[in-house]
């Protein structure tokens, strides 16, 4: 705002001072008012200098002329009449008083303006003092204001300097002219008094020129000093932005808008370039006139260098990575890239100054200075690595180099030595290898040429999705702790994380994935789990403790990430609405529930199962202390078919009298169950008879049977008839199912292990096939699906022992249970006869328990052989039970499964088996996860097809190797593919050795193979978990009261198995 306007808006006390100032002044206030803008624009101080008389005179006369113009433009109103009179009088008075001494007038005006400014400052300070108690704006915005104020000041000072410079030019021109005209050292006129006078005048002119030069220089020194401060402030802001960006990458909150920074950087850059121009012009002046002890000679080079240093620094810091490398679909987790998949990154130059005619090229390099780490993988950027810096058509867009659709490929020659951590050749595993992309830009503007560069945050390159989780752990750890953003060797000796910092970052993970962070109690539980005690401010967590396997068989992070995955996929809403207590230790859980009434339950995440959620409830028996029951944790594979609220709603407990009841009554602390979960129950379809009257109404529920003296209750899947009178099968809820979750690996967590057996040998791959029908969404609801399930169940019952010992107690003693399912299988046939006895229902309950097992079996070594056995019977049953005409729309699918099963039975050629799995794939069309199980499906399949020999296959196939590697610690299990070969040889040895042994016998052998694996290959607990007792669907340590009995297989009808099948 103009000074005069500001003065007018002062408080009364200060206005009084202004009036006093003008009361005795030779310059009337009317003139000041009339020519306010012009007066403020002139450099009166300069004009007042004794030796610049011309300047003062010029200003004085300009003022009189302007005043005259002003008079002329005034109208003839009464008000204006008086004003006219006053102005005319002022004009006369001024002329009379200052005609002879315009410097005096200049001095007068300069002092008046200065005094005004002083009063203004006082007034504004006073105003601030008065309003001090009023809340000052946030410090952040205060900072912004400060920068903006300083920028404005800088520009004013720059304009001032330019004015001084122009004055200097005038003085120099005047001197130059006089010098050329009057200075005649050649003709000896040293006695001529006129000449001496001229020389004296010339000397005076030179003096004033020298003075002006020094003045301009002092001004520039001052300007540079101020811009240094300004730049310091901007650097601080930029540092803050970098931190915010890093935090945002980790899922933390923060605003990463670059717009204000861009504006400020550009303005300062503009100013500095202007100053640079001024300095250049100053040097030109020096070229024209110089003299002894010319200050320009001495000082401009230094000034220019200082300015150059500042400009360089400004530009270098202004080149920033606006968007860190990220793949498009993993937006929440940037900085993890996968080979062969596309990613993008963007850099921006915050100083938006460029020459339109000059195209600046930006380039990217990956790992320009690779760290000296053995086995460090080298990558090439496949797409073009250079790009012209886009200026954008609108000035808003700024100077951006946007690299999209980039892909990385590992360099071939490095493969020989890569080892990839599987054999410990390199000190870093793949997910701890940090890579950098450097952007370089050849900047050129106004004759300034600079090579700018900026570097992304370190990122991790994976080759398979199952490495994603641990890669993300590395990113978290790095960004949380590293002070040097280029420290690629960070994981050579990763520092421990202070607990408070880690807690904050973990909180962000939940915040960003599930939209609700961790409560204080949650964090306390996590801290105790990690640290073993209550956390203090100084507690630290080491990297191995966080990311490497713990006693539970998987790392803390894998566990937590499993929960994150579960939350994101299935429980987001419940978590958001705080229905899941989540992280509660058993001890704490008891403490919480003890005082609550029977049937109070809480939801918490399993500590022993990856990505599992469970509920615990309390019961107060008539005598004795309260008991706590917890159900076997649900994982994504179950929740995919049945939402947790529905499970809670339908949960049944078999009491002694076999009357099922739901023990879950109140959600902790005391919310009635239905009140808490009511809004989340899925809609029960009101049956329209016409549509599906052919079928019984049916829905999936889960029940547990109580077993004395055990913590967790067992549970089986029940196909319950919802309405016994109607007995209609109802394909309820299947539509909501997520495709393909069940037996198929979830890329990140517990699914991974299932891939392992799939790669170990073909039979396992096959083993997934029987499970397939359950996975396909369409199958579940159809009678055919039921039939197949029953078929499986039937078989399962016989081989249950090895597979799922806990089911044993119920099933084994009752071989006749095999019968009723057949009845149930027939149910769809006989719609009218609804008399399925409760007992029969009971038996039905048992069977799908086998189903649950089967689902897991796909991924489990121990169970897999049994399933082969299963398969044999399965087909029989299927063929017996399913009548194609009844399921016309499924025709295509089912025979496929059959075909495949026949493959199993009849020809056991591996290749054909795998061809069969193509059918599986068809079966599973639409389920993406399945395809991922098969490692982008094509890879494995083709590989398997291509090579008859499994051994060769494993040796040669890089992808399988990568697959193995990704799964937590399978690397250690399979240090080299050679070991796999050995394993397979061992397997092979078993095959021929036993001649035409049945699958059963081989199944018995398998566990021992696993054992030997454990011994010989240092099977880590993590992988053991995947193969062995840590499997989510196998008994947990807590409830492993029942031993795993493998000898049950002896009852099983032997299968014909040829040794050559495994060739």
């Amino acid at each position: 705002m103009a000074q005069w306007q500001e003065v007018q808006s002062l408080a009364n006390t200060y206005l009084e001072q202004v009036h006093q100032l003008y009361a005795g002044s030779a310059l009337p206030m009317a003139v000041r008012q009339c020519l306010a803008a012009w007066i403020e624009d002139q450099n009166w101080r300069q004009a007042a200098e004794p030796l610049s008389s011309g300047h003062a005179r010029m200003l004085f006369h300009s003022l009189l002329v302007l005043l005259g113009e002003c008079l002329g433009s005034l109208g003839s109103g009464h008000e204006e009449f008086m004003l006219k009179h006053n102005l005319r009088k002022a004009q006369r008075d001024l002329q009379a008083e200052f005609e002879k001494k315009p410097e005096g007038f200049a001095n007068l005006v300069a002092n008046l303006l200065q005094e005004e400014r002083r009063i203004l400052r006082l007034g504004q300070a006073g105003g601030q003092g008065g309003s001090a108690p009023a809340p000052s704006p946030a410090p952040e915005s205060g900072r912004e204001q400060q920068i903006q104020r300083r920028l404005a000041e800088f520009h004013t000072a720059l304009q001032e300097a330019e004015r001084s410079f122009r004055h200097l030019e005038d003085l120099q021109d005047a001197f130059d002219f006089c010098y050329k005209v009057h200075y005649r050292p050649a003709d000896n006129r040293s006695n001529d008094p006129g000449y001496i006078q001229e020389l004296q005048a010339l000397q005076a002119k030179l003096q004033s020129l020298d003075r002006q030069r020094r003045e301009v220089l002092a001004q520039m020194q001052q300007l540079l000093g101020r811009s240094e401060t300004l730049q310091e402030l901007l650097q601080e802001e930029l540092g803050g932005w970098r931190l915010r960006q890093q935090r945002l990458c980790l899922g933390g909150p923060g605003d990463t808008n670059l717009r204000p920074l861009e504006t400020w950087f550009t303005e300062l850059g503009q100013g500095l370039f202007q100053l640079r121009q001024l300095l250049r012009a100053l040097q030109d002046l020096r070229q024209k006139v110089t003299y002894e002890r010319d200050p320009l000679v001495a000082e401009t080079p230094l000034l220019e260098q200082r300015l150059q240093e500042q400009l360089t620094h400004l530009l270098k810091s202004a080149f920033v990575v606006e968007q860190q490398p990220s793949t498009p679909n993993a937006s929440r987790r940037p900085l993890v890239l996968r080979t062969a998949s596309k990613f993008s990154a963007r850099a921006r130059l915050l100083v938006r100054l460029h020459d339109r005619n000059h195209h600046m090229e930006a380039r990217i390099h990956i790992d320009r200075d690779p760290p000296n780490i053995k086995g460090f993988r080298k990558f090439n950027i496949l797409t073009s690595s250079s790009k012209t810096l886009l200026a954008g058509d609108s000035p808003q867009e700024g100077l951006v180099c946007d690299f999209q659709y980039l892909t990385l490929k590992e360099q071939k020659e490095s493969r020989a030595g890569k080892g990839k951590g599987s054999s410990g050749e390199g000190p870093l595993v793949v997910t701890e290898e940090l890579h950098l992309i450097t952007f370089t830009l050849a900047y050129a503007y106004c004759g300034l040429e600079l090579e700018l560069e900026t570097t992304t945050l370190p990122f991790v390159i994976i080759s398979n999705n199952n490495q994603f989780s641990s890669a993300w752990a590395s990113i978290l750890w790095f960004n949380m702790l590293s002070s040097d953003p280029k420290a690629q060797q960070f994981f050579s000796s990763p520092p421990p994380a202070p607990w408070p910092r880690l807690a904050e970052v973990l909180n962000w993970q939940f915040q960003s994935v599930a939209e609700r962070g961790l409560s204080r109690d949650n964090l306390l539980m996590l801290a105790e789990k990690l640290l073993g005690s209550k956390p203090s401010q100084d507690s630290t967590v080491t990297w191995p403790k966080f990311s490497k396997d713990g006693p539970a068989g998987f790392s803390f992070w894998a566990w937590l990430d499993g929960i994150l995955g579960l939350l994101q996929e299935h429980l987001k809403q419940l978590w958001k609405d705080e229905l899941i207590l989540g992280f509660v230790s058993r001890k704490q859980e008891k403490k919480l529930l003890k005082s609550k009434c029977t049937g109070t339950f809480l939801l918490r995440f399993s500590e022993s199962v990856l990505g599992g959620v469970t509920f615990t409830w309390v019961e107060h028996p008539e005598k004795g202390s309260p008991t706590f029951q917890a159900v076997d944790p649900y994982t994504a594979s179950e929740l995919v078919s049945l939402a947790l609220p529905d499970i809670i709603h339908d949960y049944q407990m078999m009491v002694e009298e076999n009357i099922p009841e739901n023990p879950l009554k109140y959600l902790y602390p005391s919310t009635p169950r239905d009140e808490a979960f009511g809004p989340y129950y899925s809609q029960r379809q009101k049956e329209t008879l016409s549509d599906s009257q052919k079928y019984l109404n049916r829905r999936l529920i889960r029940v547990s049977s109580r077993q004395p003296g055990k913590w967790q209750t067992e549970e089986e899947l029940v196909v319950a008839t919802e309405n016994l009178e109607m007995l209609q099968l109802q394909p309820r809820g299947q539509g909501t199912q997520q495709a393909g979750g069940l037996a198929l690996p979830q890329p990140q967590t517990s699914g991974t292990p299932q891939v392992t057996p799939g790669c170990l040998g073909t039979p396992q791959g096959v083993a997934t096939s029987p499970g397939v029908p359950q996975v396909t969404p369409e199958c579940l609801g159809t009678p055919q699906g039921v039939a197949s399930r029953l078929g499986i169940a039937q078989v399962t019952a016989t081989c249950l022992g090895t597979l799922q010992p806990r089911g044993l107690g119920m099933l084994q003693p009752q071989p006749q249970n095999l019968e009723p399912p057949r009845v149930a299988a027939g149910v769809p046939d006989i719609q009218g006869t609804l008399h399925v006895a409760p007992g029969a229902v009971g038996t039905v309950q048992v069977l799908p328990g086998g189903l649950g097992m089967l689902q897991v079996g796909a991924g489990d070594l121990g169970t897999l052989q049994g399933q082969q056995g299963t398969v044999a019977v399965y087909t029989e049953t299927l063929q017996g039970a399913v009548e194609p005409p009844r399921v016309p729309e499924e025709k295509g699918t089912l025979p496929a499964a059959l075909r495949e099963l026949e493959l199993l039975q009849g020809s056991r050629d591996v290749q054909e088996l795998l061809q069969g799995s193509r059918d599986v794939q068809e079966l599973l069309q639409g389920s993406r996860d399945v395809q991922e199980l098969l490692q982008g499906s094509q890879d494995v399949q083709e590989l398997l097809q291509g090579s008859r020999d499994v051994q060769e296959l494993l040796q040669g196939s890089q992808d399988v190797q990568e697959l193995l590697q990704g799964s937590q610690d399978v690397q250690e299990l399979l240090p080299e593919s050679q070991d796999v070969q050995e394993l397979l040889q061992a397997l092979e040895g078993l095959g021929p050795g036993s001649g035409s042994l049945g699958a059963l016998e081989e199944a018995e052998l398998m566990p021992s193979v696993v054992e030997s694996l454990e011994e010989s290959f240092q099977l880590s607990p993590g992988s053991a978990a995947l193969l062995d007792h840590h499997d989510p669907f196998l008994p947990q340590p807590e409830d492993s009261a029942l031993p795993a009995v493998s000898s049950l297989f002896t009852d099983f009808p032997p299968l014909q198995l040829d040794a050559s099948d495994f060739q």
Partner: protein
Amino acid sequence: TEAVGLYNVGETCCLNSLLQVFFMNIHFTRILRRITVPSPAWRRSNVPYQMLLLLEKMQCGKCKAVWPTELAYCLAEHRVKLFVQYDAAQLFLTLWNLLKKQMKKPELVEELSDLYTIHIREHLACQNCSFEIKNNSTMLTLPLPVLDANSHRLKTLEHCLQYFFLPEELTGQNMCFCQQCGRETPFLQSRKLVQLPETLTLHLKRFCFERSSYTLKLSHSLPFPQELDFREILTENQCQADDSEKASWQYELFAVVAHSGYSSWGHYCAYIRSLTECRWYCFNDSHVCQVSWDDVKCTYGRSNLSLRETAYLLFYMKKHPQ
């Protein structure tokens, strides 16, 4: 009063900065105003008198800056030549000594000394016997190293001060002759602070001599506080003063003389906090502007911007309980 600049009359940026520091110090001007006017013959060469004249000119004139020409000529007579770049620390000593020498009244000389001199006791203790030499000395500035013995950067001004008062062992070539032992023995040299003046001058030794004659400027960051409390910096045995003296060892930053450019060639300016208004000003020869603490902080230095303004002399003023 509005701050007034001083024109550069020939590489006088260093002189101008120091003059401003003197003039803005009301304790100093109080002394200066009481000098006796010398006889006309001596006026031209009397430094205190010329300084007073200049001060008067600055205060009465309505100009934004004045010419220190007469003073510059006067100094030239005392072998402080024009058109020569001076080291600010050196020029400060020269100027001060000239002032002290030419002030005729002994009470003024005493006041001037009291205002600026630091009293230190140096101890030299033989490590062999317990022979100890004590030596009282006075200093105008504390010359603080910015690097330690191993050429590591000292982090803050407080560290520099601590390092300065750290006892040093004199061994090997540096051994001293001990009267008692009758031979050269290793000595322990230590400094103890006895008394601190009203205006405390600290000199950051940013110019270091690397091999041969080449002088290097150390531009790394060295933060200095606005408030300095020696009781927190020094340990008990680094002081030799009674409690009332020590209680007064609390200081507030008053001025910074900053240097920009190279060691061989550069520019000086002064950041001074007006004692009456409590505002910071930057004096850049004829150009004066009001600044904030952020600007002063900018003179901490920065390694990668070596040409930028870096603090060279720091002036602290004793705090007085109000």
